[in-house]
């Protein structure tokens, strides 16, 4: 079973060595530019000229490709089809069938939305593939993110797979006492009831115990925290962040000026 819910792939690469905040800035810059830019092909160009080359620099191109194929292609494809078929845009009709009458305009709009979402999720995937969650959180905590917030994010990554395992144990236990979890949809939904009780109440008890365990290790201490792993923030990082901010600012100004 997977021990944590994380995409992170440990590799030795330039991308991995960048400061998490730099990568996060890059991610949001890609998203912003992709959505704000008035040029039709911006998002597509970003995918081809930035995201894919970066995945190769980060030595995670294989993982990126598979995640994109399994997760993104179906989602983006679905959005494209829905928008192309149902957006009520006037223009040259391609064909008419029943209530569907896609136009070239709705086709283009569907493509634009789909490719923007593709670029957005892609840049996040790239970020998650190359950034260790605890590294990101300790860096952000050092910069002033509340410790409790960071704790919730990081612990969720590990605790959800543990809860899945527990749910599996409860299902097995209930089945061994004759609970029928197969068959019709109604039966399956009914079978969820004896699962939810033990899982929810068990988790509540667990939460209290875990709270005691972390309090026993000074979680709410008012002293200034220190960090076992110092996440390096090189001058290259600061330079890249500055450049990205300038690009985003220019893009926003261009957009405002245009309208």
């Amino acid at each position, binding site marked *: 079973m997977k*021990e*944590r819910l994380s995409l992170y792939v440990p590799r030795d690469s330039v991308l991995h060595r960048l400061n998490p905040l730099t990568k996060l800035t890059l991610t949001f810059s890609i998203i912003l530019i992709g959505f704000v830019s008035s040029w039709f092909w911006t998002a597509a160009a970003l995918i081809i000229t930035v995201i894919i080359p970066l995945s190769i620099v980060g030595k995670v191109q294989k993982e990126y490709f598979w995640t994109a194929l399994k997760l993104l292609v179906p989602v983006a494809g679905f959005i494209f089809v829905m928008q192309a078929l149902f957006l009520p845009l006037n223009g040259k009709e391609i064909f008419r069938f029943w209530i569907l009458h896609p136009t070239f305009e709705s086709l283009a709009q569907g493509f634009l939305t789909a490719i923007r979402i593709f670029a957005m999720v892609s840049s996040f995937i790239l970020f998650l593939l190359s950034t*260790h*969650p*605890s590294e990101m*959180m300790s860096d952000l905590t050092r910069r002033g993110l509340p*410790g409790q917030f*960071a*704790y919730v994010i*990081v*612990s969720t990554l*590990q*605790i959800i797979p*543990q809860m899945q395992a527990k749910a599996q144990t409860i299902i097995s236990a209930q089945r061994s006492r004759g609970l029928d979890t197969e068959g019709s949809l109604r039966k399956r939904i009914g079978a969820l009831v004896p699962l939810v009780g033990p899982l929810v109440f068990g988790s509540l008890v*667990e939460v209290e*115990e*875990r*709270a*005691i*365990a*972390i*309090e*026993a*290790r*000074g*979680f*709410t*201490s*008012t*002293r*200034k*925290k*220190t*960090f*076992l*792993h*110092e996440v390096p923030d090189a001058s290259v990082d600061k330079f890249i962040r500055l450049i990205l901010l300038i690009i985003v600012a220019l893009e926003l100004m261009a957009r405002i000026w245009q309208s």
Partner: protein
Amino acid sequence: MAIVDLINVTYKYPLMDVPVLKNVTLQVQEGEFLAIIGPNGAGKSTLCYAISGFIPHFFKGELEGTVEVAGVKSKDSSLSEWVLKVGLAFQNPFNQMTGAKFTVFDEIAFGLENMGVPQTEMKSRVDDAMAMTGISHLAKRSPYSLSGGQQQRVALTSILVMQPSVLVLDEPTSQLDPIGTREVFGVIREMSKRGMTVIMVEHKMEWIATFADRLVALYDGEIILEGTPSEVLTSPQLASKGFGLSRYTLAAQAALDKGLWPKKRPFPITLDEAFEGFRLINP
């Protein structure tokens, strides 16, 4: 001088009518190994929480009397400072993992990060603590990939690394298999040998008999017996109140009526003691 000093401690959980601890007065000497026994609902865990500061800082409710460790009252301290004096580990090893750390080494360093220990000191303290509890080889593993016994030793190490003067253990082996139990008891015994004050709730009488300097029996929130393990564990008063006694003690008590256990010989707790006693009658 007593390092832990409880005077007339009475405690009621919120929304409860009856107190769980009633007028408990207890002193523990520095370096002493004290075991606490009692049936379910006797207030053992509550007593642990009171000593380790979770009462009154985590669990609200009404606390009367005073809990003092090394001359400081728990009421006058904050919980995060109190945990530097008194460390607490409990039953479920899984729930004692923070979930926020991906390796055992990082997991153990969690408390030190919170306390603001400088990085270099942190590393050497974690290394030392792991060497002490014999888990250095697990440093790079995920806390969730370990066996129960290993996980419990990680939990213990992450408390010990904070260097408390008193260690409170609430049934640390009750969810472990015999191998895990032996591993954890090994660590606890080592800590005790090094002069740490240990207060442990435990059901495994044979282990207590070989470890503890002193034993306290808790029943319905009150201390009903106090003394050396052999005095307390062989007392007929215990069996009638639903305490789980060692099977060797029970066997000898049953054998006494039939003349199979030497009269006047104290009842045995461990296998060796039972063996010697039964040999006297039937050599």
